[in-house]
């Protein structure tokens, strides 16, 4: 089996991550809920993970909030920071985890490309924020969030970065990029479990929480505490998920995320190089842009769903077909769906050869049938 669906969830999880989760489940504790030994061990591990994440995203450890994933992070931020009266600029590359909360909010919305120049054209007097993904989950295109963060700060706008496809692959710095909010998920580039993610917040960002409830302190107050991170962490945390993040962050530090990016980019570039000699394959990449290890394509005359199904059934190559929950990018490229190959640290150069050979055969057979 060749797993090339790492943009959905990374296949590889470090052995130490798996072992740490299993070990934790034998001795669970509820962090911040009393000082019994298990509760304290869990609380120390949660703090340690916040500190490691603060190091990764260059933010303050007590402004790292845990959520169930990037969808919850984005919903919390969008619904907790903005209202229908606000004008927000976003891009055609966004995932529905950005678009749907914005649509539901009923705010005034401008959609454009992911460059500072394009964003600049859409600024109005009522513009409150720019929400942008770092990397498109459909094409792997890398957006300049550093430039956009600085541009927003200079222009008095809030900036929110969706790093679902970049955390653990590309460096992201809240402070250096002058971003206000970073939303991340654990189960993709950060190589952790599904069901864990978070938000990194800059100073003076006051988010109204989506949920309130148990906080482990100030129990007689009728209002939920306003201090971060507890302000956005009502209820029991996903501690096994946080354990998995903790150990995977160690693994990533040891590997060096720049090495992981280079590995994935080299695989994707080699794949694109081979595909460029095939007739009837459209790859959604533009020459002047930068990409990660994602390659989206279509085979002329074939439904993306059929191509992905044949790849899985006949060749054991696992990809994803469809709109990838990002409807607006399909308007941009004039598509309705693509076959997405997303390479990760589990993939090797031989996989690229096999993926290319499989596509070649599919095109050939299809040509005979047509």
């Amino acid at each position, binding site marked *: 089996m060749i797993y090339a669906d790492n943009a959905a969830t990374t296949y590889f999880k470090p052995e130490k991550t798996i072992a740490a989760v299993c070990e934790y489940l034998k001795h669970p504790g509820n962090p911040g809920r009393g000082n019994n030994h298990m509760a304290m061990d869990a*609380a120390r591990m949660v703090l340690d993970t916040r500190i490691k994440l603060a190091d990764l995203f260059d933010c303050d450890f*007590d402004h790292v909030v845990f959520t169930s994933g990037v969808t919850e992070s984005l919903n919390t931020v969008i619904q907790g920071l903005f209202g229908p009266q606000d004008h927000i600029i976003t891009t055609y590359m966004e995932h529905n985890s950005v678009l749907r909360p914005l649509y539901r909010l009923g705010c005034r919305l401008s959609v454009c490309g992911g460059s500072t120049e394009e964003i600049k054209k859409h600024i109005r007097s009522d513009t409150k924020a720019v929400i942008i993904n770092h990397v498109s989950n459909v094409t792997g295109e890398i957006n300049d969030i550093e430039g956009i963060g600085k541009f927003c700060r200079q222009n008095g706008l809030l900036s929110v970065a969706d790093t679902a496809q970049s955390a653990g692959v590309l460096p992201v710095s809240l402070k250096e990029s002058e971003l206000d909010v970073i939303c991340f998920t654990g189960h993709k580039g950060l190589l952790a479990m599904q069901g864990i993610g978070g938000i990194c917040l800059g100073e003076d960002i006051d988010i109204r929480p989506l949920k309130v409830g148990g906080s*482990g302190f100030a129990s*007689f107050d009728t209002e939920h505490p306003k201090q971060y991170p507890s302000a956005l962490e009502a209820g029991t945390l996903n501690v096994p998920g946080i354990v998995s993040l903790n150990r995977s962050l160690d693994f990533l530090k040891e590997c060096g995320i720049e090495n992981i990016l280079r590995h994935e980019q080299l695989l994707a570039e080699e794949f694109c190089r081979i595909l460029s000699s095939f007739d009837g394959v459209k790859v959604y990449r533009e020459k002047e842009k930068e990409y990660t290890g994602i390659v989206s394509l279509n085979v002329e005359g074939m439904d993306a769903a059929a191509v992905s199904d044949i790849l899985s059934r006949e060749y054991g190559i696992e990809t994803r077909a469809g709109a990838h929950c990002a409807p607006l990018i399909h308007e941009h490229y004039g598509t309705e769906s693509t076959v997405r190959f997303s390479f990760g640290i589990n993939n090797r150069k031989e996989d690229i050869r096999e993926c290319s050979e499989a596509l070649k055969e599919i095109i050939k057979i299809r040509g005979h049938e047509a």
Partner: protein
Amino acid sequence: MRVNTSEYMIITFSETTRALYMERICKEDGVHGRIIPLPKSVDAGCGLVWASEKRDRVFWITYMENRGIEYEEIMEVSV
């Protein structure tokens, strides 16, 4: 088994995470103390505070200032 009350210097924080950070930094520096549940004499409700038998107010305030630790209150309490 200890059942007698003792005098402690209690340091409270606005957030549990900060109390845990205090513990982490003190451990790194070899400074004595421990996390205990919020004593009723300090406040009602629940939560975690830093407690130390070293009842030297100036020491603790200076220490936290030097280590960049934000605290809420510091007081001597029988626990």
